[in-house]
């Protein structure tokens, strides 16, 4: 099985040095693209590869690149931003890619910048990822010194500046328009979806934004072609996926596997199955803001469409497992506390609804829940659902709640009738 994304990553995630990266074929894709491809050909290649965004939304990457305005009268400067603000609870895949192989991301960014005709690039990395940020800063400096960045890159006439920005920390910065506000030195509050960022993003200029894992794939597609990339996958979305698993499994971790690997295989073969004495009850397939799936869904391929069909989402592809010794109400309470804390406060349903949700869950968990509380929670899952707020934070927060109310309803009811948490 081929593992292009993680081929250079050591077990302890120690970074690969530039000379070793080059020896392993690093920056060959950049040389190839700059010497023999037009930006348009590169966009077509990525479109044909069926690469979809790995940050959670799964938007086709090539289509996003193509949306950058073209022509001779375009507004400048144009920006490329890597969203390296990995803060989804349960997710740790981008940290691995940045710490273990920073040049792979940088090469992917230079290729994306060439395809989208941008001259300035930022890596927006979260505050707590200090190791990743230091390694990226060092790798960027190395790339400058070898003329992979700067003016007239490798004699091609293409110029690119790159900066690493360390965030001051808020989950909402992972939302595209909030991220650009953070980079502009504002409160990170999301904007309207229109105009699109590709038309008016950072400082009102055309801006392309992609996730770390998405961009890390680019050089491999350039080197090996779209058909090769599609052949890596077990589904119609191209490529491999870095899946992770946490919770009470024997061997928590992250692995690069074919896109569309079923959760059962990830849990049992790679995660080693459940720890002794605990049983599987359910899982969030792709981070905190995805719907629970349960036993009957374990054979679902972990890809965008298959998980959608069973009412959940691939999200980040990092699975959080709920076991039978852990209280589902407590787990959902923890999640909603997180979302309430991280709401930026701009939209009323989110700002007021999430703390109400969290308080109701706290009361149920502590044994002071009342009849009617579940209806209050259900009301929130509708009132904070899609279309009621600027961004996806509140709808995402409702996903684990609505599915927990469906799959673990008896547990919620027992808390209320017995006036205590049965797990305590």
């Amino acid at each position: 099985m081929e593992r292009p994304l993680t081929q250079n990553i050591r077990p302890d995630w120690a970074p690969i040095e530039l000379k070793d990266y080059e020896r392993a074929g690093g920056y060959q894709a950049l040389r190839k693209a700059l010497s023999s491809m037009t930006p348009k050909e590169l966009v077509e290649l990525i479109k044909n590869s069926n690469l979809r965004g790995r940050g959670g939304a799964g938007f086709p990457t090539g289509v996003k690149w193509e949306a950058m305005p073209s022509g001779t009268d375009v507004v400048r400067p144009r920006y490329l931003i890597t969203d390296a603000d990995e803060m989804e609870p349960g997710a740790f895949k981008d940290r691995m890619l940045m710490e273990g192989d920073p040049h792979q991301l940088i090469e992917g960014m230079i290729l994306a910048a060439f395809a989208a005709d941008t001259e300035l690039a930022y890596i927006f990395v979260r505050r707590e990822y200090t190791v990743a940020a230091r390694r990226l800063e060092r790798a960027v400096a190395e790339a400058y010194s070898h003329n992979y960045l700067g003016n007239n890159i490798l004699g091609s006439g293409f110029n690119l500046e790159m900066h690493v920005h360390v965030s001051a920390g808020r989950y909402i910065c992972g939302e595209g328009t909030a991220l650009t506000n953070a980079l502009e030195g504002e409160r990170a509050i999301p904007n309207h979806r229109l105009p699109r960022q590709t038309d008016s993003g950072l400082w009102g200029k055309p801006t392309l934004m992609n996730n770390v894992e998405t961009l890390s794939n680019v050089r491999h597609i350039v080197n090996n072609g779209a058909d090769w990339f599609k052949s890596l996958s077990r589904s119609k979305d191209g490529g491999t996926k870095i899946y992770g698993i946490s919770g009470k499994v024997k061997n928590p971790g992250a692995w690069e596997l074919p896109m569309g690997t079923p959760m059962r295989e990830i849990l049992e073969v790679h995660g080693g199955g459940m720890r002794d004495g605990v049983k599987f009850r359910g899982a969030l397939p792709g981070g905190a803001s995805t719907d629970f799936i349960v036993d009957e869904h374990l054979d679902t391929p972990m890809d965008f469409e298959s998980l959608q069909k069973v009412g959940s989402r691939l999200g980040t592809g990092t699975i959080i497992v709920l076991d039978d010794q852990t209280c589902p109400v407590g787990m959902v309470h923890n999640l909603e506390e997180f979302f309430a804390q991280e709401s930026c406060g701009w939209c009323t349903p989110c700002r007021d609804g999430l703390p109400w949700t969290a308080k109701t869950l706290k009361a149920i968990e502590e044994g002071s829940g009342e009849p009617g509380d579940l209806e209050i929670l259900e009301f929130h899952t509708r009132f904070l659902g899609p279309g009621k707020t600027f961004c996806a934070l509140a709808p995402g927060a409702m996903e684990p709640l609505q599915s927990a109310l469906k799959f673990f309803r008896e547990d919620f009811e027992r808390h209320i009738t017995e006036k205590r948490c049965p797990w305590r």
Partner: protein
Amino acid sequence: MLTDEMKQKIQIEIDTCPSRKSACIDAMQIVQSRMGWISDDSLKDIADFLDMTIDELDGVATFYNHIYRKPVGRHIILVCESVSCWIMGFGKIRDYLSQRLGIEMGETTPDGRFTLLPVECLGACDHAPAIMIDDQLYWDLDQNKFETILENYK
């Protein structure tokens, strides 16, 4: 007072942005790395340097989790309270640290050595529970490991 060194570092950030105020988050992080926190005086100095009003800058400062508008200890302990750490026993870690240091979350020890803060997912979910002290991540924690870890921070 902003030192010349701080001003130079902030200027480097300003030079990458179309406007001075765009560098304000970097500027606060630069000052905080020297001063530990952003006092009212520092806030005013930074606002003046970036041609911003104090309120405008404070609006940004109070939005972000890692801009500290109150004094903090010499070392900051971030305790991950997100879902994977919660499942793996974050509560015991929090209670132990709280008892051992004699402070609640959000407080600083009387000797100014440690501040205890909750943090959202540290991205070490496969090694939960995890904490971060200053810039160093610690994981797969149990109580026995703490004594040796805390000894490293005077």
